[in-house]
């Protein structure tokens, strides 16, 4: 019989594979199977399974030595990574348009928006489920100290991105950057940069927790 943690890990791997099939599956059927639609169904089922497992056995899903803040950081890392991948894929789809729409309602963003909404709801439910087992103290000085360092990593990443963008804008010929400077492309890039900053913070936070335990 598999342990709860092993069941969790298996569901997690299956969810990630299904999510990639959903986002990057080919338009044509593969051996008669619509990979995109099947991936979406399996992904949502796995997500529901993970949340149910967390609701019933959350004490056994994560190692005992992980604080509530660390558990939330890991959950946040997974969700921000998935949202960033979806946003990146959307930009990639936009790059194949002959003419990029200039109005928001013309953007084919229905899939992206519904994906982000589902991720947001699942993230909120997961955070709530984790919080149920919180003791009298949810965050203490150790968590805050690590959070501060992780935030600094995010600030550095954002600053470097801005500086790199300034260098790029002042050195590259305008026609080369024409596609990137279209209103809605630029708007999506800025949103992706903000999500990337969040991801850097979460990566730094879990790395700091792992390092602090060694």
């Amino acid at each position, binding site marked *: 019989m598999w342990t709860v943690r092993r069941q969790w890990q298996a569901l997690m791997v299956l969810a990630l594979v299904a999510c990639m099939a959903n986002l990057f599956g080919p338009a044509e059927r593969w051996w008669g199977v619509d990979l995109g639609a099947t991936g979406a169904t399996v992904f949502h089922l796995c997500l529901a399974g993970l949340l149910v497992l967390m609701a019933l056995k959350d004490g056994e899903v994560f190692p005992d*030595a992980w*604080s509530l803040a660390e558990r939330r950081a890991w959950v946040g890392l997974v969700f921000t990574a998935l949202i960033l991948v979806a946003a990146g894929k959307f930009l990639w789809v936009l790059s194949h348009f002959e003419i990029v729409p200039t109005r928001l309602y013309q953007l084919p963003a229905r899939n992206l928006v519904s994906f982000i909404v589902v991720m947001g709801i699942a993230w909120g439910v997961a955070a709530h489920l984790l919080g149920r087992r919180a*003791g*009298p103290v949810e*965050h*203490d*000085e150790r*968590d805050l100290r690590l959070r501060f360092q992780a935030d600094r990593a995010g600030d550095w990443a954002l600053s470097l991105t801005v500086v790199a963008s300034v260098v790029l804008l002042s050195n590259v010929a305008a026609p080369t950057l024409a596609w990137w400077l279209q209103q809605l492309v630029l708007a999506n890039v800025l949103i992706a940069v903000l999500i990337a900053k969040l991801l850097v913070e979460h990566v730094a936070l879990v790395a700091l927790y792992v390092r602090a*335990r060694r």
Partner: protein
Amino acid sequence: MSDIVIRNQIRALRQARGNFTQEQLATACGVTRQTIIALEAGKYSPSLELAFKLALAFGTTLDEVFQYAEKK
């Protein structure tokens, strides 16, 4: 980097007080149990405020809980 190693007697003091669990100590000091685990393993140097809270929780002085030695 720091040339001083801070050691603590938290685990020994806890065991000397019988049933004083990590959970109870954490609650008494207003931190999570994971921070007590990190402190006992020598993986975390607490703030001065937490150090005093720990000493207070054991009813002893700061230098009985924490000691420092220079790195060789």
